[in-house]
Structures are given as C-alpha cells and as structure tokens.
C-alpha cells in the first residue's frame, strides 16, 4: 500500500514536473513564434496572394481584383520584348559566380592566414573587418567620391586623360568598379565566419599534420576545409538563395537611377515599385509575382545544392 502510494506520488510529481517544463517552454517560445507567424507566414502568404491580384486606389477606395496569371504574363512579356531581365539575370549570375569563385575562396585564404597568425595578420584583420564595422552608407559615399571624383581628377592631372569622369555611368568601366566594391563589401562578413569556424579546430591536429610533413596548402586543404565544411556549405547556400534578392548595393550607389546595364534581378524587383514613388502600392502585385516566380526557380536549386554538398562534400574523418 505504502509502495503504491509512493509510486503514485512519484508519478504525479513527474507529470507535474513535465507539465511545468512544457509550460516554461511554451512561455519562452510563444512571443517569437507569434512574431514569426504574423511577420513571416501571414505577410508572405499575403504577398503570395498579391501576386495574383491587381491593385487600384485611384478613386480613393482600394480595389483589389483577382486577375489570375496576369502579373506573370506581364513578366513574361518583359522577357520577350525587352533585354532588361536577361541583363539582370546575367548580372545576378555574375555576382553569384564571383561570390562563389572569388569571394569565398579568398575569404577562406585570408581567414586561414589570420588564423595561423602570419605576419601582418592583425592589420589584415582590422582592414578586412572595416566594411562590417563602418556604416554601409558611409562606405558607399566614400566609394562614390573616390571613384567619381578622385580617380578622374588624378587621371586628368597626371595622365591628361579626361575620359575617366562618370565611371559609374560608363558601361565599360562601371561594371569593374561595382564588382570591386561588391567583393570588398562581402569580404568582411565571410572572414569573420570562417575565422570563427577555424578557431574550433584543435591546434593539435594542425601540429600533428605539420609534424607528419604536411605543408600549409595540404593542411588547409585536408584539415581546415573539411573541418569548416558545414560553415562553407551554409555560406554557399546563402549566396545561392540570395541570387534573386541580391541588389549588389545598387540602390545605395544609384538610388532608383541605376543604369540598365548594371541592374540585377533584386534591384529590378525593387525598381518596379520604387520608380513610381515609394508610397504607392500600385505596383506591388507585379513585384510580388516577380519574387514568387524566381523563388520557385531558385529555391529547389538551392535545396538540391545543399543536399549534394552535404552528401558528397569532404568529411573530417
């Protein structure tokens, strides 16, 4: 009898404890979950619906009509009759390729250099982190002044060449300048993440490899990369997922007046709305359709890439 009572008391205590733990958990996550539902799911669901509607407020009353695939037809019409979306797609691809083939490898190399504490590592650390620390608009203003004022003045004074004015408006020189800024801007965030991942590698592994005669490159390739592979995969996936949304700092540099040769898909989507005035939601439906269309293309590719990278990528063992 005493044993049964004891068991019942223990069981009740366990249930109560579990209930309290559940209550605690629910209380902790309730606000963020509600926030997520409202500001992510509901908003995005509304955006998805908006892609199939038209919006008119010219009579002082908001009229939304269901137009089915009308907005998508308009996007396909733009593809058929104009070059801009092909140019924007090409530019977005170019930024993605640069990110994957230049920024990521160079970031890793610089992070490895800093991690290994080689000469001037501290200097590189500060200089490469600066874009992450300084306000992005300050960087943009500095960049614009340097490219549009300093370089042309120097070229005219030293080389008597006055063809360097308005670089950012030039179809031949502008892309180079924009790409340099893009790479410089991206560097800082990547290096920080790689450094952090590398710091988790036991020093003994590096030392053991060096004792076994492994050079720096072999150490980097065989030990460091497999160790930081999940971080690397995350950044690759982020870069791919950002393919459509990436504005490449064009708005900061040009406002709503980016030349067509420079535009990316992300900037074009923003331009669809902004060129008619930030206040007017009239063009939100087509911008929404635009986002939905490209998400449907990019999302499966990104997920597949992630799966392949994780499945076939290097492992620490």
């Amino acid at each position, binding site marked *: 009898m005493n044993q049964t009572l004891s068991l019942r008391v223990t069981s009740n205590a366990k249930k109560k404890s579990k209930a*309290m733990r559940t209550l*605690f958990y629910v*209380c*902790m996550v*309730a*606000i963020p979950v509600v926030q997520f539902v409202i500001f992510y799911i509901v908003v995005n669901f509304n955006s998805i619906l908006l892609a199939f509607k*038209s919006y*008119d*407020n*010219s*009579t*002082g*009353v*908001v009229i939304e009509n269901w137009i089915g695939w009308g907005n998508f*037809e*308009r996007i396909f*019409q*733009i593809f058929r*009759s*104009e*070059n*801009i979306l092909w140019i924007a797609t090409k530019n977005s691809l170019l930024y993605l390729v640069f990110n994957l083939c230049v920024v990521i490898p160079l970031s890793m190399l610089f992070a490895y250099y800093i991690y290994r504490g080689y000469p001037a590592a501290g200097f590189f650390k500060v200089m490469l982190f600066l874009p992450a620390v300084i306000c992005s608009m300050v960087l943009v*203003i500095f960049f*614009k*002044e340097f*490219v*549009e*004022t300093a370089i*042309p003045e120097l070229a005219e004074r030293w080389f008597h060449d*006055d063809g360097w*004015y*308005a*670089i*950012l*408006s*030039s*179809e031949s020189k502008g892309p180079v300048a924009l790409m340099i800024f893009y790479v410089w801007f991206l560097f800082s965030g990547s290096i920080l993440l790689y450094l952090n991942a590398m710091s988790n590698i036991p020093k003994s592994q590096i030392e053991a490899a060096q004792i076994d005669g492994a050079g720096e490159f072999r150490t980097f390739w065989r030990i460091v990369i497999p160790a930081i592979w999940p971080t690397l995969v995350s950044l690759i996936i982020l870069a791919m997922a950002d393919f459509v949304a990436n504005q490449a700092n064009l708005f900061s*540099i*040009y*406002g709503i*007046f*980016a*030349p*067509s040769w420079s*535009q990316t898909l992300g900037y*074009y989507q923003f*331009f*669809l709305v902004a*060129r*008619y*005035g*930030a*206040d*007017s*939601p*009239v*063009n939100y439906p087509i911008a929404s359709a635009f986002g939905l269309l490209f998400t449907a293309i990019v999302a499966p590719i990104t997920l597949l890439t992630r799966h392949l990278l994780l499945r076939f990528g290097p492992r620490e063992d």
Partner: protein
Amino acid sequence: MKTRKSFKTLPYVAITLLTVGALAGCHRDDPDGGISVDDGGGTKSVLRVKYLNGGLRDEWITKVCNEFCELYKNHSFEEGKVGVTIVPEFIKSNAAASSIKNNPNDVFWAEDTDYSTCVSTGQLYDITDWLNEKVAVGPEQKEDQTILDKFTDSSKQYFAMKDSAGKDHYYAIPAYENSCFLNYNIDLFDQKCLYFAKGKTADGMSDSQLNSSAVDDLFVTSADEERSTGPDGVAGTFDDGLPATYADFHALITFMKRSSITPFIWKGNYPDDLSSFGLTAWGGSSGAETLEACLSLEGNLSDLVEWNNGSIVYDEDGVTPKHLDTTAVNSENGYLFHQSQGLLDSLKLAKLMLSNDGKDKNYYKNSMSQSFDHLTAQRYFLNGYSSGVVEQPIGILVDGCWWNSEANAYYQSDSDRLSRRMGIMPVPHPTRAQVGEPNVMVSDRQSMIFVRSTIAEKTIPVAKAFVQYLNSDVAMNTFSRYTDMMRLMKYEITDETLKGMSPYGRSVVAFSKSENTKHVNWVPMTDLAKKNASLLSYRTWGYSCSSTDINPYTYFAAHMSVTPEDYFNNVNQYYHSNWSYLLTK
C-alpha cells in the same frame, strides 16, 4: 528549495512583464506623442504643423505661423482657451502615406506623398467644406474668394474624389508650382555679350558652320547693342537676345565654348530634372494641349510623325519626317502619343545640350557623375569660377525653379542674393515658324497640404483657420517673397512681394504670369488616366525605351553614337509592343 522555486518563477515573471510592456506599447493615448508644449500654461489652443524643410527653407512658413498666431491671439477656438500656439516640426523628413493617421502633427506640408494612397487608406481629413468657404484672414476678415476658386482646373480634377453619390470631396490642397528650366546667368551673358544681335539668326547655317567661328557674327558686341526679339518674337520683352530656335541654341552653345564658358551644368546623382526639362521642351514644341491629351489618355493630335516597322517614315528628301493627319488618340491606340513631333524635337534638344559635335561635351565634366549632387552643381554655377573651383564660368544650370532657394547659403549675403541676376531662359523653338508660340511650364512634382484624418475634435477649428490662412493671398505672397517660387494656385503677386524677391524670383513670376506661358500640371486628368497614374509618371512617360531606360540624357551620354531618331524609334517600339500590357483598363 525556496531559492530554486524563486529561480523557476523568475523567467515567468520576466516573460509576463515583457509581454505586458510590448502590448502596452501598441496604444497611445497621448496625441501629443509625449512632446511637451508651451501653450501658455494651458491657456492657448495648440496646433501641430509638419513642414518638409528642404530647399524651400522655413523662413516663409515661420513668418506665416507667427502672423497667424498674432491674428488670432485674442480669439477663442475652444472653451477656456484664448489664442493659438503652433508647434512646428520643420525638418527634412516626409510623412509616409501609411503613417499619417498616427502622426502627432495635425497639418502637413509634404512632398512626394501619394494622394490616392493617402485617401484610399483613410489617412486624410475631408476638407471639402473648408475649401468652399471664403478664405478667412483673421477672426473677422475674409477674402472674396474660396480656396477652391484659387485651384487651377487640373488641380480641381485631380484632387476631387467622388463618393458613392458622385459628389466631389477634397482631401488636400496643391502646394507649389515646380518646373525645370534652363536657368541662365544674366550677369555672365551681359559681360560676355551672349545675346543675338537684332536681325541675326543661325537659321539656315549648316552643322559645320554652327560648330565654327562663323557663329561669332550673330552676337552683340556690346551690352547696349540692340538684340533680336527672342523666342516670343516680340521686341522689348524679357527674352530679347535669347536663342529663338534650335539652330540659334546650337550657335549659342558654340559661342559660349569659344568664349571659354562651360555651357551647362546639372546634378548627376538624380537625373529626374533632365526628364522634367524634356517634358517642358516637348510641350514647347507640340503645345500644352498635346501634354494635356497625354494626361487624359485621349485627344486629337496633329503633330504625329508617321512611324512604321520600327522607324520614322521620311519624305522624299530623306530628312523630313512624314506626318499623319490629325488623329484621335485614346486608350486603344495610346502608343501613338509617343509619335509626337514634339517628343522627337525634345530629343534633338537633349542631344544638342550634351554635345553638338558628338565628341566634345557641352556640360560640366562631373554632371553625369553619381557623386555630383544638386547643391554642388548650384554652388559651382554661382561661385565656382570666382572661387577657383572650376576652370571656366558656367552659363546655364538645368534645375527646378526651387534651385535659387536651395542655393541661398551660397550667396555672400542677402544683398548679394538680391543683386545677382539669374533668370529663366525660355526653351527655344525647333523651327523659325514656331517662334511666338507659347512657352510651356510643366509642374510635375507632387506637393500638397493636408490634415490627418484622426485630428482631435477640439483642434479642427484651429486647423481650419490655419489652412485657410496658409492659402490666403497674403500667405501665398509671403511664400513667393522668400522662396522665389509660385504656389500652384491662382493669386496675384504684389509689388511689395516683387521688391523683396531676387531677380531670379522676379524672372519666375514674369515667366509664370506671362500671357504667353501655358501651365501644365502633370497630374492625371481623367478617371482612366488616374487609374494609370504610374504609367503617366513624369519620370517614365515621355522617354521610356524599356522599363529601365527612361532618361534620354543619361542614355545619350553613355551612348554617344545614338541619334535622337534612334532613341525616338526605341521609345515607339517599346510603347507599340507593350501598350496592351502597360495600360490598365
């Protein structure tokens, strides 16, 4: 045990406090937004006014507010209070359309705030009754007119929103008239004798002659010499000696360059002003009626160029475009609007301003740079040469008529501002045959005065009195006196106001009030046009040859080999191919 229980309770308490705090922040009882106000210890009524303090500066509105408070100092708007205190928010930030209702300010003077969005989301107070009463200029005094009497016809059409019974309601009042011009340095023109002599014209000269010293003989050799009649074809008016035709303009540009003057300067970061000027040039060639037809999406157009298979159709001479008979253009064939000869002419003018020989630039070297802002352009125009910053004096600034107010800080003193002579150069005509035709002034930026819909009941009488006073002739003259600009309303400028304005301001008044000037308010004028307001945006309507190539000046600067005819063909190709998608029916 007790300690462990306390620790377990702590997170619950923290979460509860956080939640309560977050929810409490969603509501605000205090319409003042928590800002303390000097209201004479609660004895005066309080009115909050938000004014976008940008280029127009705030001297004029501060004066108007002070005058208003003085006028009503002994008047009671609400029980227990006498007089008014105005709480100003005069900063360079605009009121977003979605948040006006929740803004603590009562009366707004805003720019680039979309009227339809504001009305459709219930942000604005219905001021129809205020507009239909005689304008009060004090507790006892009224003008003979109502505010609505002072509206232009286009403003009446645009700002009227019909209710279900078909009755018009108004929620805002237009603020200022804004147009982009060729603003020239009269002192420099006088000093360098840049005026055409009487009887002289460049018409008939070939391009090579127009690019050579042959133009020198067309200009006066002293300031006293008699000048040509100018674009209006009438002697003794403000435009005497100025280029009357595109050929004259070409000659002037060459002569300026030969006189070591940089012909043009404009800001490079936001090329909107160039598009705006392009619309003015289009209207100057085709007439205000053509632009108004665009804004109505219907009209009979008589200057349409024949266009077929992607290009202009020419006469037998291979140079002169063929023209269509007067054609009824409407929503079905609206792509025809862009076959206007005036549009082609404005493209020729754009090309000429950039370079008259396809090689040398006619504009200041940084004018296409992204970092070259409007203030720098104005400073270089006013003082660049005298301060040694630029190598040559600059003849013409392409900017909106607000530029002189914006550039106020670059004058040495008020007497400097009142003595230096700048003026508006009327757009020349494409051909001699068009000399004498009216100038067109296109006002395309949206600016308006409104009241938030959630204004407190007790504040309505004060707001009404203030809005009425703001639109009285006295206050509008104060506006013009300090900003050198015109309100987008019908009112007379007094002699006293003119005396206080700079020469540039007087030039604006003369141009705006001239019988030879037609005004076009760039707002949609019919229901269908209102539905297509985004299509008719001043930024994109005239010159889109794709959804992103919308500015001929930047396009020509980047592609020097593209001719005006090529660009015209691209524009028409775009509208012809996409009209059914662009237009919302």
